[in-house]
């Protein structure tokens, strides 16, 4: 191996070898956000959950919203990357790693929200020791740990050849890279093992990902509360999760492309394709939202309608309508035509979708609890600085982990880009030929198939 590898994709090694002022500045700012959250949590630990804005009917608020939101974002990665890998979409190459990293980071943060939400975090181990599978919370625990294991491993597998490149060429952190490269030398047998494992994981990770947000929705839909007890919630949450996940990838791509000057790797075409995917998800999200709310409205059950109107015209209207604008109106306007300014348009639309999906989770969790069935006074929930602190720290930790990952590992898969150049081009041509009626591949077709037709 020569240094041609490094020379050719020099831009990808940039973040690993050089550290600028911007890095320390970012880490400093994120550190402040995390500090805010840490102080808030220390106060909450010693005083109790009373320091939040939660109260009698609204016993779940920001933390549970964040839980659903972050777990939703986690669908970005692994799911998208697995689907693109399985469908042999060649344009996936610079994107998959970025997406997979989001999944792993955000899953930790999502699961952490539940711990922050506990009244007695010191008794956390009760869930392990005395857990009972009738509770949807245990379904979440199981499903999320499966997803975390699978997606961490799925992130790690395609990293191995890249880590080996770093071990041989970077000259920094050699021990770390040597350990993580698992003795990778790129032998034929090693490639076979790696490719087979990636293929298995790509298939395995899809049903696990779907199960995760399905059981997250079951936390709500298994109760008999108005506007929670809905059969559509499983698919609705999964669709929303993929929706917010794609948006998160696009935002991350936009930022990384700019900061690390990777314009030649993350091209407008990638944004256009992902933008189209986002547009499809916008429409799907709108369709499911429409189906969900129309069913409630038409049925006109008094308990459902109390919650319904509190969202449409009641105290929650600003959140509800902001959600509709951010999740549907803006993406529709921006994404319908992507021929020009694809990057800017998709990034802006995605930023709105991320906010909109957070609002969607909020608008699902809180209004139902605010409107009890019995004539209790309506609950007005507003978070305190403690909850804002946890929100800020959650984003802070997520971005910090991401930034650190970019410092330690190539955020765009080096070997997959090289494989695209060396093998992908030819493979695509050959594959294309097999699609065509008069392709050259006809001659190579197995006898059996000819007999069948």
């Amino acid at each position, binding site marked *: 191996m020569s240094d041609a590898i490094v020379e050719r994709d020099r831009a990808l090694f940039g973040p690993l070898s050089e550290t600028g002022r911007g890095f320390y500045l970012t880490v400093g700012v994120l550190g402040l956000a995390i500090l805010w959250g840490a102080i808030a949590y220390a106060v909450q630990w010693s005083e*109790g959950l009373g320091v939040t804005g939660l*109260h009698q009917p609204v016993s*779940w608020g920001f933390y549970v919203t964040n839980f659903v939101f972050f777990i939703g974002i986690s669908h970005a990665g692994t799911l998208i990357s697995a689907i693109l890998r399985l469908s042999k979409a060649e344009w996936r190459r610079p994107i998959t790693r970025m997406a997979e990293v989001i999944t792993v980071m955000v899953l930790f943060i999502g699961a952490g929200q*539940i711990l922050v939400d506990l*009244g*007695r975090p010191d*008794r956390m181990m009760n869930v392990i020791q005395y857990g009972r599978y009738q*509770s949807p919370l245990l379904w979440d625990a199981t499903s999320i740990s499966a997803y975390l294991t699978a997606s961490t491993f799925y992130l790690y597998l395609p990293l191995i050849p890249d880590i080996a490149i770093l071990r041989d060429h970077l000259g920094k952190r050699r021990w770390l890279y040597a350990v993580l490269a698992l003795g990778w030398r790129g032998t034929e047998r090693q490639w076979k093992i790696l490719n087979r494992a990636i293929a298995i994981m790509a298939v395995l990770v899809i049903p696990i990902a779907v199960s995760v947000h399905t059981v997250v929705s079951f936390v709500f839909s298994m*109760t008999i509360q108005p506007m929670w007890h809905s059969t559509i919630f499983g698919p609705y949450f999964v669709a929303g999760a993929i929706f917010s996940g794609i948006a998160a990838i696009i935002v991350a791509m936009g930022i990384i492309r700019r900061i690390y000057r990777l314009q030649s790797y993350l091209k407008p075409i990638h944004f256009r394709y992902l933008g189209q995917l986002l547009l499809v998800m916008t429409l799907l999200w709108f369709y499911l939202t429409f189906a969900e709310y129309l069913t409630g409205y038409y049925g006109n059950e008094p308990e459902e309608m109390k919650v319904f109107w509190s969202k449409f015209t009641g105290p929650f209207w600003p959140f509800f309508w902001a959600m509709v604008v951010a999740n549907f109106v803006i993406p529709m306007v921006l994404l319908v035509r992507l021929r020009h300014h694809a990057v800017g348009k998709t990034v802006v639309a995605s930023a709105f979708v991320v906010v909109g999906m957070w609002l969607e989770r909020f608008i699902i969790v809180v209004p139902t609890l605010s409107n009890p069935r019995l004539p209790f006074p309506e609950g007005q929930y507003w978070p305190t600085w403690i909850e804002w602190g946890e929100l800020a720290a959650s984003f802070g930790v997520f971005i910090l982990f991401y930034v650190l990952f970019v410092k330690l590992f190539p955020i765009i898969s080096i070997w997959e880009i090289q494989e695209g150049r060396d093998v992908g081009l030819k493979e695509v041509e050959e594959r294309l030929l097999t699609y065509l009626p008069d392709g050259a591949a006809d001659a190579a077709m197995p006898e059996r198939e000819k007999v069948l037709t």
Partner: protein
Amino acid sequence: MALWGMVIDLDRCTGCQACVMACKAENNVPAVGPKEAARGRIISWMHVLREESEERTRFLPRPCLQCDDPPCTKVCPVYATYRNPEGIVAQIHARCIGCRFCMAACPYNAKYFNWLRYQKEGPGQNPDVSVRPKGVVEKCTFCHHRLQKARERARAEGRDLVAGDYVTACAEACPTRAITFGDLLDEGSEVARLARSPRAFRLGEELGTRPKVFYLAEMEGHRRV
């Protein structure tokens, strides 16, 4: 085996809150103070709901309805709340992790959370009932400690538990005797008789939770024979 239940006659209820106070004293339910109360964090295992209309004001005392098919116990991740063999929905404060899933699942809002540490153990409290720490859920238990005491007394006297041995604090305190308490399986008991009354209904019956607290509907001019 008994199945403990309650009947509350809405015709008799005057909304005097005696049951609420009796419950608080009996079960060491903390007074959270005006600041916390303004934040909507009052703990009141027995709560008198009020519905005001132009013609009249109606009262509805609501303890935990002790559902026979409780939505709250199903969702508990750690077995901190469960339906005991005699139908009482129990809460184990020492086990509860404070996730508040049971509060979100209860259609009657009968579960309460200790948002802060509202009280310490001290004089003037009922020694039979534990003082709850911060961060756990608590609820009406039909004064379960009274059942334990009544059982012990009956055993010491070498007899069976009879009707009237075990009554909740709210039923005992009600000046208009609107609350009747007893064993629903004991056909001859007052509570079983009233629960079969044509006036009897249960809250949210359509939810399938099968509460063991029955209400007798208001009927103007109605007098119990």
